[in-house]
């Protein structure tokens, strides 16, 4: 009942005054408890990831070896226990958020930029240009992504930079295809023609009239893919092709935990949970945003 009244008031408010599309979406998003919770958790993680660098010193707290404290189970002193070098797993998991979030967000953002340029231009200009570019994208998608990433990392060199380039290269075709299909839905709208009829250039049409009207679905797609990127990054690190030990990347930590899993399961559980939680947060936020963008779909 109250919820209904709430909606009605929103409607009336909308008719009476100005409303801006971003405010509309945010208002809908706020009524989505699960997504709101995911958002709060994610914000907490981001703050934690930033703060971790100030609270703990990388050399002494994160990577230094304390032989006396090896493989201790979770306790008041070490919340998540310690690993086989006596390092505090809690500190390492918290610190590890820096890698995963950074790689996930940067890779997704860079891929999105390439995906928008390729996808939007293909949808807008069409014809032979579209056909050729999309077939190239299809060809890239044909190769199993993990194999392609491993091959690229092998060429580019292990480490953060090689990993981000390889992951971007692998994820751009997917973005390009999805963004192309989103843009195709907008490109034949009459307001595009109306804008052309008032003398707007093609680049301006894409920038001003097409992308803002596709931004919602594109953003959802990017959020959903951040979790995929985080998983890929962890997988590469797990295969010791990404972030190298002793850096506390979650995938690398899992990799180190494999041989001790039966003896000290906490070594695998906590980094694993961290990967799960982060991916889940991005997916749930994406879900909430989908509904918020199109409240009728609920």
């Amino acid at each position: 009942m109250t919820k209904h009244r709430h909606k009605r008031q929103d409607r009336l408010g909308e008719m009476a005054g100005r409303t801006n599309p971003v405010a509309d979406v945010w208002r809908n998003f706020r009524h989505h408890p699960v997504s709101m919770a995911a958002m709060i958790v994610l914000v907490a993680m981001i703050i934690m990831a930033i703060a971790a660098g100030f609270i703990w010193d990388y050399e002494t707290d994160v990577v230094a070896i304390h032989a006396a404290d090896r493989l201790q189970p979770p306790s008041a002193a070490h919340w998540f226990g310690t690993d086989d070098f006596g390092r505090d797993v809690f500190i390492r998991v918290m610190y590890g958020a820096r890698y995963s979030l950074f790689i996930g967000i940067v890779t997704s953002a860079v891929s999105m930029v390439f995906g928008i340029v390729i996808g939007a231009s293909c949808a807008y200009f069409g014809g032979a240009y579209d056909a050729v570019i999309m077939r190239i994208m299809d060809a890239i998608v044909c190769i199993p992504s993990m194999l392609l990433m491993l091959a690229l990392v092998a060429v580019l060199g292990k480490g953060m930079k090689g990993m981000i380039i390889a992951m971007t290269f692998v994820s751009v075709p997917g973005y390009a295809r999805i963004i192309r299909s989103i843009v195709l839905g907008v490109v034949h709208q009459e307001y595009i023609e109306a804008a052309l009829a008032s003398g707007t250039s093609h680049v301006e049409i894409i920038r001003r009239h097409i992308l803002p009207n596709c931004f919602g679905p594109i953003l959802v797609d990017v959020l959903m893919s951040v979790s995929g990127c985080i998983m890929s990054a962890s997988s590469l690190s797990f295969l010791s092709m990404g972030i190298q030990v002793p850096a506390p990347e979650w995938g690398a930590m899992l990799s180190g935990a494999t041989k001790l899993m039966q003896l000290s399961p906490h070594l695998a559980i906590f980094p694993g949970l961290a990967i799960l939680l982060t991916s889940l947060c991005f997916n749930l936020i994406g879900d909430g945003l989908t509904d918020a963008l199109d409240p009728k779909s609920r």
Partner: protein
Amino acid sequence: MQSDNLIEVRGLRTVLPLKNKELAAPVDDIDLDIPLRKTVGLVGESGCGKSMTARSIMRLLDYPIHIQEGTIAFRREGGSEIDLAAISEKEMRGVRGREISMIFQEPMTALNPSITVGKQVREAITLHENISRSAAKERVIKAFYDVGIPEPEQRYHAYPHQLSGGLRQRICIAMAMVLQPAFLIADEPTTALDVTVEAQILALMKQLQQDNDMSILLITHNLGVVADICDEVNVMYAGQIVEHAEKAELFRRTLHPYTRGLMKAIPRVRGSMEGELYTIQGTVPSLSQMPTACRFCARCPYAQEQCRNEMPSLRDVGNGHLVRCFREVEP
């Protein structure tokens, strides 16, 4: 180019490549004159090529549709003439919106939903003129006022979804008129509106035409609208102009069987309610199978042997009345 014409289209042929590499011509050998300060109607059923003709003049054709031949002479401000079919895309961009603008059928979708209407109209100005935002805003509000939008200052900040269909069409008209173009193409501007709003919008267009010394090409399938505001009428069928006359002449002496059919198909308020409404039998021939003879002969009640073998040309029957038909006398 005649001195009292703003636009002279000659032999315009716009083609669309088909799957089998052949070319179909949705606009086939069109001659069209738009006299200065006059409203010219372009009438025909859906798919007859009337919108495609307008889009050819605007050069807003979707690839791979293109103009194959013909000229579109346009008298610019200051008197120089250009051929719109030949100039570069960049030059054309300077003409669109500034000297020729267009309003569309669907006011619901002709405005970008994510930008306030004021901003959209303002951008139409700043695309062509280097003026400050506040000066542009003032002109927008003046344009809103001119097209009869109540509370233009408040409406400036509205999003399209907050306005009614009639108001949105007024916004579209304001956007098209804000730079005072010499030529306005109105592609079924009132089809999506109800009749009272339609009457208001047509009255507004007449008013703006007088105020701005503008020529209008009005595309419609509604002969009532033609009777209301047009000076001259062109009837299109299957990509060709089949009849052209001044409005009074056309309604007094309707010659082409297709135009007669259109007139008979209008429901009357007075008169007998018995019998079914007249309809023209059959459908428009498909683009890929356009007959080489008269394109209307399959649906024409008066078709003779000659009609099935030859293409009639557009001939002058006096009084500036052109008709594409072999029959010498009115039936």
